[in-house]
């Protein structure tokens, strides 16, 4: 089981913003979506790639190999309530590897977070719940057309899965990228607020769009995604937060 191999494009140790406490974040390569704002284009394809710079994106590692790294920070997890975060890409796209890694971590008493957009069949997601302590769940767009245009997939499955997870009592931290002139529309804020009202225990992180650079697209020889947006002004960000708070989602905060 633990000789299952996955394609990993980065392992960040001492990650402080990927869930509770001090964590090790393992980034799995491959994603069925194509978000227009994606900061990690190297995470989208499933196979290792070599950039024009010669930089290699992605290497094959077994669960055992990854756990050997993860285990090294056990004392920091214990001191902080941290643990392993699996991110991507869309980590559930390497389902068997992801699932085995989560189980292996739990087997050693290591807390787990799964950073997912929820675009997989419910039974498969449901099966992961046993070994996920916190879901970092991306909520990308509300209107179907917008969702399709910005991510390349229909919203039905991710939206339904979110409600199912919450109904099943999973701990979810909602991660909401807000892209001006793209998804940051009133209907989307309303929907986030509604989720916040329905599930007051669920944390909501707003992640205002920020240009991190298209260098990696160039290095990979891929066209930069056409996205008409801009970095929101501080006032705009504050207004989103206000809207959510006054609509009853008191837990919303900047991520």
């Amino acid at each position: 089981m633990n000789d299952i191999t996955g394609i990993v494009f980065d392992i960040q140790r001492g990650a402080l913003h990927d869930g509770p406490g001090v964590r090790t974040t393992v980034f799995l390569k491959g994603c069925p979506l194509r978000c227009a704002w994606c900061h990690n284009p190297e995470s989208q394809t499933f196979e290792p790639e070599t950039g024009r710079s010669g930089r290699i994106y992605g290497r094959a590692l077994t669960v055992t190999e990854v756990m050997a790294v993860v285990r090294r920070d056990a004392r920091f997890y214990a001191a902080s309530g941290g643990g392993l975060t699996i991110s991507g890409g869309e980590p559930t796209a390497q389902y068997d590897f992801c699932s085995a890694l989560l189980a292996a971590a739990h087997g050693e008493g290591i807390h787990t977070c799964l950073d997912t957009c929820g675009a997989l069949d419910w039974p498969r997601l449901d099966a992961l719940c046993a070994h996920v302590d916190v879901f970092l769940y991306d909520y990308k767009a509300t209107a179907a057309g917008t969702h399709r245009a910005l991510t390349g997939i229909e919203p039905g499955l991710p939206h339904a899965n979110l409600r199912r997870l919450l109904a099943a009592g999973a701990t979810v931290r909602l991660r909401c990228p807000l892209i001006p002139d793209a998804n940051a529309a009133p209907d989307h804020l309303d929907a986030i607020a509604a989720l916040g009202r329905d599930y007051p225990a669920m944390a909501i992180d707003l992640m205002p769009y920020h240009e991190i650079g298209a260098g990696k697209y160039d290095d990979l020889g891929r066209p930069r995604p056409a996205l008409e947006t801009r970095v929101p002004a501080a006032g705009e960000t504050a207004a989103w937060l206000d809207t959510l708070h006054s609509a009853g989602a008191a837990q919303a905060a900047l991520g």
Partner: protein
Amino acid sequence: MKTLTELNLEAALAAHDPLARERAITTAYRAHENASPAVRELAVLAVQFPAILEPIEEGDLFAGRIRYPLVSFGPEPGGLGYACRAEAIRYVVAGRGLDQEACAEAEEMIAYWETRATAARTRAAYPPALAAALPSDDWTRESGAGFPLYRMAGTVLDYRKLLQLGLSGLDAEIALRAAGASSAQRDFLDGLRAALGLAAASLRHYAAQARSLAADCGDPSHVAGLSTIAADCDAVSQRAPATFREALQLAWIYALLSGTWNYGRVDDWLGSFLVADLDAGRLDEEQATQLLCGWWRLMKAYDNQFNNRVFIGGRGRVNEAVADRFAMLAMEATRRTRLNQPQLSLRFHADQNPALMARALDVIGEGCTFPILYNDDVNIPAVARAFGVPEDEAVHYTPYGCGEYVLANRSVGTPNGVVNLLKCLELALRDGHDPVARRQAGPRTDDSSFACFEELWRAYAAQLEHLIAALARQEKIAYDVTGREAPFLFLSVLYDDCIARAKPLFAGGVRHLGGTLETYGNINTADALFAIERIVFQERAATLSQLIAALDGDFSGPDGEALRQRLLAVPKYGNDDDAADAMARRVHDHVCILTREQAARVGLDSYLVVVINNSANTLFGHTTAASADGRRHGQPLANANNPAPGADRGGVTAFLNSLVKIDPGLHAGAVQNMKFSRALFTRHRTKLEALLAGYWAAGGAQAMISVVSRDDLESALREPEKWGHLLVRVGGFSVRFIDLPSDIQLEVLGRTLHE
């Protein structure tokens, strides 16, 4: 920021009668050249004090400023023992346009000291083989693997005893000891008593000065302050101190007279005076904090660089609760003054009042860089092991200056040698030839055609053995010569067991005669050796001669650059890579054990490596050729025990895990620098605490923590290769700063770093 040496020169240049003090000290020495060391020292001290004590300045809360003339006596601030700064004297002669007669007189004085200055006598005492092994003293400019230093650094006095007994009580104790003493012993003990008399005279000098300043001063608020200084100085010239102010005044003057500038466990020796005043209502906490701020400013005027260690916290203090109250105010004074001095340092242990560490993190988080943190739970057993002393002695470990441990008022351990390990490897690769100095600098160890890595290692070890054996001899000779030259009366009064043994500090008086050796380039050497092992001996991607050619050419040309990239790609220390870290440990253990073994051979109680922070890593870098860790010619060596700049890209936990692999029980102090973003001290405080808790629990001994600043980001823009480890938060993501496009980097720079 000027150093004391620069300030001393300025004062000499501006003196009313230039070189008058230098002449007077020279005359006093000359007149007593054949007298006993104690009598001779006293004669010089009597010229020096109170003459070189500078006037009280406006705003000073205590009396006590000093400038050393260019000929002086002391352990370190003006030079070693009897010191003459010839170049500076010539500079003053020229700068003041002195006439020919004065010029001739100055040259005569310089010539006189050429054979009599303590440093000169030390060098003259080297046997020929030692002189050949250590040909130069000019370590800041010349290329070389090791150099001697001339000083008696890092004495930490028994201020508790000073404050309990006062000058008069100390005098009575010495008088008692002198009763049954031999005449040689009495000569020394009488010298101690006379030195105490000079201390009293210096206090009276300041009392009189304060009174006359008060008389001439129109501002009533200043008059009150000056009158208090006068009363305090008068009081402690006659009796033991009764208040916090008096105690601090006495300790400060005594420190200046003795030429020490590290003060040990200040909360332990000053805390009871503070708390007595607070409890009696003579002072409130605000007033006490202001007094400490005033003292901090005087320390900065004394030494602006590497000293002024003030310790708070830790095991072994007489009354922890009392000392803790002082410690809290000391941190507040540091927070308020925001000076680079004193180097406030906090010792802590598992059972300590947690308020101290919490406050320390607040103060560090505000960007003060102090207090520096020392983990007693690791350090006390480590010091016991390294020094070979029981834990109840090790509990008094006190790092001074750049971080060398001494046992307060029990041991001396001056670092009188510097070694550049990377230069030793450079020599080993070239059969002892120094490619920068272009001369045969080390022993011939091999013809450089090493068949395996272990052969190369043996050649490196041989270079180091040769050098360290020489420096250990040198250290002992420095003690012997200094001990013969002068009893260092002010130091001997407050050092165990000088009075009981009736022996001067460096001539059999000190309980534990230790020595230390500053090593630099440790981590570069480990990374370079590891890269050579991988690339040359395992992967065989380049031959040793190809590698040496690339290093000699500073990686120029496409082949050189390609090889450099291969070398850079080999794992480096600081990323929790077991193989790379094992090499760092091997290099560390080797040099530490080698050094420790010299003690018995040369007659020291201990001789230990220190791995510290100062500018030596940069200066040695200038004279060190390109190295196999990918470092270019002239680039700085990695600081202390830290990963090479930018080499630790594996995340903070990996970095911390690497640090604790280096054994603290083999050396006398090592410095670990860490930088965290401001948000970790505020919004994510529990995560910072967890990182540190994990580090301490795993064996972390020390941490010097600073906050990532705007300056850091600007440096990262200029030299991205050194800042691979710097993460910033952008749009809800943590990203490597150097990976951001330049416009975004500027944007990040533009916003204040509050995350």
